[in-house]
């Protein structure tokens, strides 16, 4: 084949005088040939025929290995990158089993509705050629009730998501009795997404699923699929609580890919301030799109998605008044399902050339092959990074992934240490199915579904939990079994996704339109769509007229403004109980239950493009309260770090602690393998509870997910990495890349260089 013209496009862009100086590193990931295995001899002729029609006459080695494991009745997890033909790993053995046994059934779990629909389309049209006698049904919140009965009674493969399984299927299992009686396979795709609190919920939902299957006399095998993570086998075993084999060797060929590290130019080298990722990634995207490169841009938040998509479209409009043929869409949660489907379709059929997305498109939704991915700011995990960069690339031909570093210490650390990045082992997924909050929720659901027998375990011994629920009269023991004894429907009140299960509906009330334009969970609503906030939806600007939390309604009005808004959130912490404490020469620590109250009291108005502050407004909303697990890092005078702090006055201490907090909060996620949003941090120059300077690091989910505990063990490593970051930072008196705040701007009496040194000394003393 001729050299791909894409290489010239990328070369031209990398050599562009606007771009070249900022390119910190270009890594070429070479192509790799595929390794193949013959079709299994016992493969049903109809399946072989369906494969042949798709031009498949042999399998990749990982597909064949999956087949062999499935046929041997083993549980296994397939770990392969995007576009390696993983769906055949489960579709082949599952469909074969369904063809062999007409009573057999399979359940496919996908993390989102969009993925379910995508999979049904794939199963129906492509994978199976459409002529196999296997009925496939999607069962989720969007399934019309007229179709639900037939899905339950005649669906051989039922595609759903954990939330629907939790609140719709399991509580009504008697209606699914035929399905459960024949359940042979459970497919769990995108397993790496089941981490943290969500994963802990899903592990418990799977417990309930197995319990119900057992009631109907079936014991399904599990087939899981995951993007590359550090511990796929261990995570799979935690989720399904059975031995799970791993298939990691990837037999699919890989095309060549460029990974480009782009560090935005310094605006002020003295202060270490860089141009924003929003403007820089928009610049890159416009260049790529104008060169005809289909591009996806990943941004960290819904707000940034809208901002960047707006900037790109503006830029294209300005430059190309006669060529507005390039269509770029924002994609994020909060859009209506129909809007999302339309964008996905547009990407597949080529009418949409570029998309700016949150991690919503990181999952395996089929949007066709794109040529370039721009990742605006590190997404918090290597797994996410590779998933996002995997969105660019087809079976053959060059693709490119651009990482646009933000000023955050983590991003700067990565840009400064590419070898760390490329050498890093991928994150491990953590779940804690025994998380007391999560566990108790699912004990309730399980008791509703089937009475608990005497001594029957639920992951662990459930007697204590049941006794506790019995005290509240929610269950009652009678005749040796624990019966649900409440008129409620527990799964209705339990959301797997976040602490709050209620959504605020956003209604466009412009000139009496009264049209629902989006949805948002309650805590996010408090920080994003408070009264007078600017809400951007698919590039249109709206001003919030009234956020009515009681009625879960947010009325907005379309209005052209030249600024956006950003809430200033204040956080209070109260220690509820101390569970463990310890002290090293450097610092002390306490693990505890804490109450975190966060309250948005004010918001900033920021001008578009320049992001300069043009005003403030007040927010009057009740605070969010959350009980969680926290690690308090203490600096009593007898530790070396404490001694370091004691030498200075309180203002200086506060500044140094704030710098340290800033660094740790942003660097720790790489070590904890979590999303930066999963941990919170707050510093106290003199803590009310402990009476000494303290830094709180806590789990952002109710009840905690074990991050505080893990952080305690990793703390010395995190301190060292933070120290290295601040030492390597070229700035003078502190910058967003190291200690966060710039102390050299004359607003405080503190000397920036001194604070920076102070942070270095504190970190060195702590480690």
């Amino acid at each position, binding site marked *: 084949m001729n050299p791909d013209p894409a290489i010239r496009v990328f070369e031209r862009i990398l050599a562009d005088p606007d771009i070249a100086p900022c390119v910190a590193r270009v890594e070429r990931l070479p192509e790799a040939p595929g390794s193949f295995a013959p079709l299994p001899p016992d493969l049903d002729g109809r399946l072989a025929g369906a494969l042949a029609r798709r031009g498949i006459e042999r399998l990749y080695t990982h597909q064949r290995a999956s087949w062999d494991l499935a046929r041997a009745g083993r549980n296994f997890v397939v770990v392969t990158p995007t576009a390696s033909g993983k769906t055949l790993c489960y579709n082949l053995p599952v469909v074969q089993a369904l063809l062999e046994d007409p009573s057999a059934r399979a359940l496919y779990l996908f993390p989102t509705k969009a993925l379910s629909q995508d999979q049904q389309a794939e199963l129906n049209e492509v994978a199976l050629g459409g002529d196999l006698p296997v009925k496939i049904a999607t069962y989720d919140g969007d399934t019309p009730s007229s179709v639900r009965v037939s899905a339950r009674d005649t669906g051989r493969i039922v595609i759903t998501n954990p939330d629907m399984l939790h609140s719709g299927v399991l509580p009504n*299992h*008697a209606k699914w009795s035929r399905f459960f009686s024949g359940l042979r396979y459970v497919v769990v795709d995108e397993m790496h997404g089941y981490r943290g609190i969500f994963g802990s919920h899903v592990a418990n939902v799977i417990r309930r699923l197995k319990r119900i299957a057992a009631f109907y006399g079936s014991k399904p095998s599990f087939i899981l699929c995951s993007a590359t993570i550090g511990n796929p086998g261990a995570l799979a075993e935690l989720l399904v609580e059975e031995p799970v084999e791993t298939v990691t060797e990837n037999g699919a060929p890989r095309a060549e890919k460029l990974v480009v590290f782009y560090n935005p130019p310094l605006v002020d080298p003295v202060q270490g301030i860089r141009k924003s990722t929003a403007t820089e990634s928009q610049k890159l995207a416009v260049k790529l799109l104008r060169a005809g490169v289909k591009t996806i841009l990943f941004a960290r938040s819904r707000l940034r998605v809208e901002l960047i998509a707006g900037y790109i479209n503006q830029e294209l409009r300005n430059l190309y008044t006669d060529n507005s043929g390039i269509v770029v869409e924002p994609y994020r949660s909060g859009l209506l399902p129909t809007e999302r489907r339309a964008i996905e379709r547009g990407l597949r059929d080529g009418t949409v050339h570029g998309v700016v997305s949150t991690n919503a498109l990181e999952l395996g939704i089929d949007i066709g092959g794109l040529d370039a991915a721009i990742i605006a700011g590190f997404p918090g995990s290597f797994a996410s990074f590779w998933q996002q960069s995997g969105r660019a690339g087809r079976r053959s031909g060059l693709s490119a992934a651009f990482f646009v570093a933000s000023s955050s210490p983590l991003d700067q650390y990565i840009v400064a240490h590419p070898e760390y990045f490329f050498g890093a082992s991928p994150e491990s997924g953590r779940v804690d199915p025994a998380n007391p909050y999560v566990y108790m929720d699912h004990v309730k659901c399980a008791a509703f579904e089937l009475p608990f027998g005497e001594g029957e375990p639920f992951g662990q011994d459930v007697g204590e939990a049941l006794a506790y629920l019995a005290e509240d009269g929610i269950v009652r023991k009678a005749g040796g079994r624990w019966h649900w004894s409440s008129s409620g429907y527990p799964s209705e009140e339990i959301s797997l996704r976040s602490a709050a299960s209620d959504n605020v509906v956003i209604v466009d009330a412009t000139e009496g339109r009264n049209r629902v334009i989006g949805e948002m969970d309650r805590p996010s609503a408090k920080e994003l769509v408070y009264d007078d906030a600017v809400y951007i939806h698919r590039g249109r600007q709206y001003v919030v007229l009234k956020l009515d939390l009681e009625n879960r309604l947010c009325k907005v009005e379309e209005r052209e403004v030249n600024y956006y808004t950003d809430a200033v959130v204040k956080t209070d912490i109260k220690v509820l109980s101390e569970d463990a404490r310890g002290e090293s020469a450097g610092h002390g620590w306490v693990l505890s239950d804490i109450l975190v109250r966060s309250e948005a009291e004010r918001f900033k108005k920021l001008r578009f493009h320049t992001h300069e502050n043009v005003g403030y407004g007040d927010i009057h909303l009740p605070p969010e309260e959350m009980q969680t697990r926290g690690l308090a890092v203490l600096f009593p005078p007898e530790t070396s770090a404490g001694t370091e702090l004691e030498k200075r006055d309180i203002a200086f201490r506060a500044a140094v602690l704030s710098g340290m907090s800033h660094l740790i909060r942003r660097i720790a996620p790489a070590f904890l393998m979590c999303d930066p949003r999963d941990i919170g941090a707050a510093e106290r120059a003199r803590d009310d509870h402990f009476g000494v300077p303290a830094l709180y690091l806590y789990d952002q989910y109710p009840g905690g997910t074990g991050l505080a505990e893990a952080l305690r063990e990793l703390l010395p490593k995190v301190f060292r990495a933070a120290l290295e970051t601040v030492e390597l930072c070229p700035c003078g008196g502190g910058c967003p890349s190291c200690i966060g705040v710039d102390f050299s701007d004359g607003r405080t009496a503190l000397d920036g260089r001194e604070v920076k040194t102070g942070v270095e000394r504190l970190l060195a003393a702590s480690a």
Partner: protein
Amino acid sequence: MATTPESCRIPAGRLLFLDLETTGLSGGAGTIAFLAGLGRVVPGGEAEGFEIRQYLLIDYPGEDAFLDALLGALVSETVLASYNGRSFDEPLLRTRCILNRKHWPPHPHADFLPAARRLWRKRFPDCSLGTLEALMLKRQRSLDVPGARIPEIWFEYAKRGSHPLMEAVLEHNAADVESLAAIAAECARTYANPVDARDCDRTALGTLWLKLQPDTGRAVLERAFEEGEERAGWMLLRHYRRNGVWAEYRRVLSALSPGWDSWIERAKDAEHRLGDPRAALQAARSARVFAADTELREHLELRIRRLTRKTAAIRQREDRTSRPR
């Protein structure tokens, strides 16, 4: 067995009236039925009576026996009769049977909620059992337990072995079964004597009969129209028009109260069937008086213009033919 006529034609003696009290309304696997009231008409000529048997679950472990007793009462010649039981009571019992590894057999089931809705939706604010009982049957319950409190009373009863209000729950259930039987009887009576039926939506009833037995349907609708039911008039109008019974059609049409719709109907009749454009023009102008909607007004203007042309042409023709005289 869901259609109104079929439910209403089953002899009362074959109906087995069922009403359940349950621990919740969600119907998931954790909701149980703890009280079943079964009512039936006991034949005996003059001394015909109504018998209610109640099955009460004293505590969870008894559910197996509770369900066995209910299954035993479902004798093959009976038809289960309920109020909303097809979507609530029966699926719930089916679920309970599956959970207790029993089989709930397919059994004929007449749900009187759809029948009642059809007959009385226009008469009462809603067609819940309570509303019909109070407003149609004019029954009053003294000291009834509110339905929402019932689960909690049973939970306490099962836990402690007694509850001061359990007796009242049993009475509540019995009263529900009685009202159900009375509503079923009212449905059957109304349906069987459609012309003389009191207090129901006679138009709906007549429409229903029109399909099965046009003579009866017509009689019911005529009666309703006499009583001032405009909708019945329109039903009749359509019926006569479809069947080409023009005399009857015009009788009804002339009795319809004036409005844009009846005037348009008259205009059409005059223009197309009676061949009287002048009368049609007049009718169309009358319709315009009642038309508020813009689109409708535009439509009428077109009609009036067309009719004006038509009448002008006629006048010319008439003038020409009259001049030589």
